[in-house]
């Protein structure tokens, strides 16, 4: 019996393997999260510009 290890590129991957559909959805969700975070950053930047030095005055 041949016990040598053959390096085959088509060897099944170990662990969780995503289907193309799952990969596509995951990518879509990642892009949506990135866009949401981008909007949040822009909002904070724009409001800082609008308020100017007053942004540091924060009465409780």
């Amino acid at each position, binding site marked *: 019996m041949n016990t040598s290890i053959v390096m085959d590129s088509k060897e099944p991957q170990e662990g969780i393997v*995503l289907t193309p559909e799952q990969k596509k*959805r995951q990518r879509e969700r990642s892009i949506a999260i990135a866009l949401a975070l981008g909007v949040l950053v822009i*909002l904070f930047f*724009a409001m800082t510009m*609008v308020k100017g030095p007053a942004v540091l005055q924060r009465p409780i």
Partner: protein
Amino acid sequence: MSVLDHHTLDISPRISEAGVADYIALLKPRVMSLVIFTALVGLLIAPGHVHPVTAVTSLLCIAVGAGASGALNMWYDADIDALMSRTANRPIPRGRVLPGEALAFGLTLSFFSVMTLGILVNWLAGGLLAFTIFFYVVIYTMWLKRWTAQNIVIGGAAGALPPVVAWAAATGSLAPEPIMLFLIIFLWTPPHFWALALFRTDDYARANVPMLPVTAGPDATRLQILLYTILLVAVALVPWPLGYFSAVYGVTSLILGAGMLWLAIRVYRDRTGSAALRATRGLFKFSILYLFALFAVLLCEVVVSAAMRMIWS
């Protein structure tokens, strides 16, 4: 071989196939659009100048907060949503989004919307938004909805708060005008949702939700619809003679109020057959137009008066 079949011990993690559209559906976009519209009116009728960036930030936070409430509502109500034809296609009953995912999504958006509004605009608005989310999710969804036939009467307060939050965002304080807008939406909620419940009674009964037509019957519901409509029409008129809103608003409120009242009388009178169904559907649809038109008049007045000021200056 193991006694237990390996299929029964499948502990492989579930890979989410939820798309962006499923998460958008969790936000209840139709409810969100009404919230944005009423909040916009609250924001624009407020005295003084609001910077456009502040206005956009406020509306975005209010919209996201409303969407977060919707996601948390769908998380908690997934069991009854699956039983009702109107809600069976929502992402959790369809299996597109897991309840835990909806919970995490709702909590994250709640946190960010409240904190962003508080930090960037003011903490009165942030606090009111937090209270709105709490009221809708905990008081209405978790407590009242499955417990009392008055669920939508008290729970309506959550839907009525967005213009108040928006006014607070614009001014940093409260005044009679946003309270009036609150009362109009608050009193509009029972006739609107009971009209819907009258032609969806079987749905609510199947899900064991104690809506008024299920617990008290259709006749008692028709009477309650008529009484709340009388109250709504009266309260929606009051800001005009008190001088808070203009004559254009007053006349619109009078004409549309007469229409609401006429349709509520038809719902009370026509109790059987296709006439009854027509009457309840008619009131349900007209109630949306009624609320939209009242707020649209206030919005138009602000836009027209701003345009006039620009022309004269």
